């Protein structure tokens, strides 16, 4: 049993699925469009809720797939299907035959400039959560210059009809509190505010992180969405929000404003997804068969999905799905 399984995407979902499939005696093949495996996690510094270095997890995953056939800087440009399975053409003109396809194409980050009222790309000191994470990883960002007051805005591009994203992006709340603690670690004298509507601490240890954020790091959580950002003459940011618990509007000057950008579907795979006959759900992510027992299968036999291509997901969610998709693929191959 040496059937090829084509995995599109070499992030956490793709790598973990490949690891499990290889252990099951199948032959996974990863096609990754960027120059390295690891996806978004490889760009992250530390992981919530316990500030675990992302590098540790990524390196372990990379080590597990070192014998897996992997194409980097490569995209699937065409895919056909017949009675023998799938026939994919890659951007390097190679052809791959496979018995099943796993879409593990993950997510994109919401483009913060679309919420113009937050001033990203207009005011210098407005940055995204991804850029702040890069600061933690590299120690450099021209915008972060010994700030005294830092604000975080939750739900940027999520729970927002105006940008057509009505869903909750799931991980941003916990990420915001993690990053709020981390910025306090770097600048202990700074005042840190987060502006939230709900704090969705959905996982084990996440509520503990919230308590720690309040008690040990003295981060001030304000319930209310920032509605307006402007710049004063010194280049500082003036924000307006309602403190909805107090029932009064607030005005505050900040040195840095961090936008917690939502996950959106990675659209670079749309053409291939369409060829495979996989639809999108109402949130614009890929449609799986059902959310309880069919989360890894699609309307098309032999086409599987795993990770954040179907909805915003945390890393543990994604790894769980990757392991589950491997079982589904194994059963599919064996029952044939």
């Amino acid at each position, binding site marked *: 049993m040496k059937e090829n399984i084509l995995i599109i995407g070499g992030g956490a979902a793709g790598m973990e699925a490949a690891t499990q499939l290889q252990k099951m005696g199948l032959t996974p093949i990863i096609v990754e469009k960027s120059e390295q495996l690891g996806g978004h996690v490889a760009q992250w510094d530390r992981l919530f809720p316990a500030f675990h270095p992302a590098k540790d997890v990524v390196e372990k995953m990379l080590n597990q797939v070192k014998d897996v056939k992997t194409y980097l800087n490569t995209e699937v440009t065409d895919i056909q299907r017949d009675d023998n399975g799938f026939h994919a053409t890659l951007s390097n003109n190679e052809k791959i035959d496979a018995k099943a396809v796993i879409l593990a194409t993950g997510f994109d980050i919401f483009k913060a400039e679309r919420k113009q009222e937050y001033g990203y790309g207009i005011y210098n000191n407005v940055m995204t959560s991804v850029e702040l994470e890069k600061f933690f990883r590299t120690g450099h960002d021209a915008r972060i210059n010994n700030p005294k007051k830092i604000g975080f805005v939750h739900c940027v591009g999520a729970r927002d009809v105006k940008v057509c994203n009505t869903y909750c992006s799931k991980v941003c709340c916990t990420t915001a509190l993690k990053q709020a603690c981390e910025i306090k670690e770097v600048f202990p004298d700074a005042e840190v505010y987060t502006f939230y509507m709900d704090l969705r601490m959905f996982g084990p240890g996440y509520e503990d992180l919230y308590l720690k954020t309040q008690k040990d790091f003295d981060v001030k959580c304000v319930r209310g969405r920032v509605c307006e950002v402007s710049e004063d003459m010194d280049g500082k940011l003036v924000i307006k929000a309602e403190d909805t618990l*107090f029932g*009064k509007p*607030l005005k505050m000057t900040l040195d840095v404003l961090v936008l917690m950008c939502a996950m959106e579907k990675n659209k670079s795979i749309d053409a291939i997804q369409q060829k495979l006959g996989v639809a999108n759900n109402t949130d614009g992510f890929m449609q799986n068969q059902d959310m309880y027992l069919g989360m890894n299968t699609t309307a098309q036999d032999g086409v599987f999905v795993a990770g954040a291509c179907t909805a915003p997901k945390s890393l543990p969610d994604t790894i769980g799905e990757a392991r589950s998709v491997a079982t589904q693929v194994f059963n599919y191959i064996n029952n044939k």
Partner: protein
Amino acid sequence: MDFGFCLSPSSHVKMDSVDLTTFNRLKETNPDINTCIACGSCTATCTAGNFTEMSFRRLLLMLQRGKEDEAKKMIQRCMLCGKCTLVCPRGINIRKILLDITR
């Protein structure tokens, strides 16, 4: 002459100029003060709150939003029965904080 017009002061809380001295002083002896999750249990159970505007949840916010005078006025409604402390899910020693504010 009264034309029936007047200037309304801004209702914005100007966070840049809020005096946090009292709140920060309380925080030193009561670090739990930060851990309120605004669930409202203290207010719902409050003996005085059933008849007056007394609300500990709101009182904490007043201290953080520069309304110390209002907070001190509100605190006079408290009868120190301690029911709020019993119900607080964060285990905040509310009764002690109320006493410390008036000290």
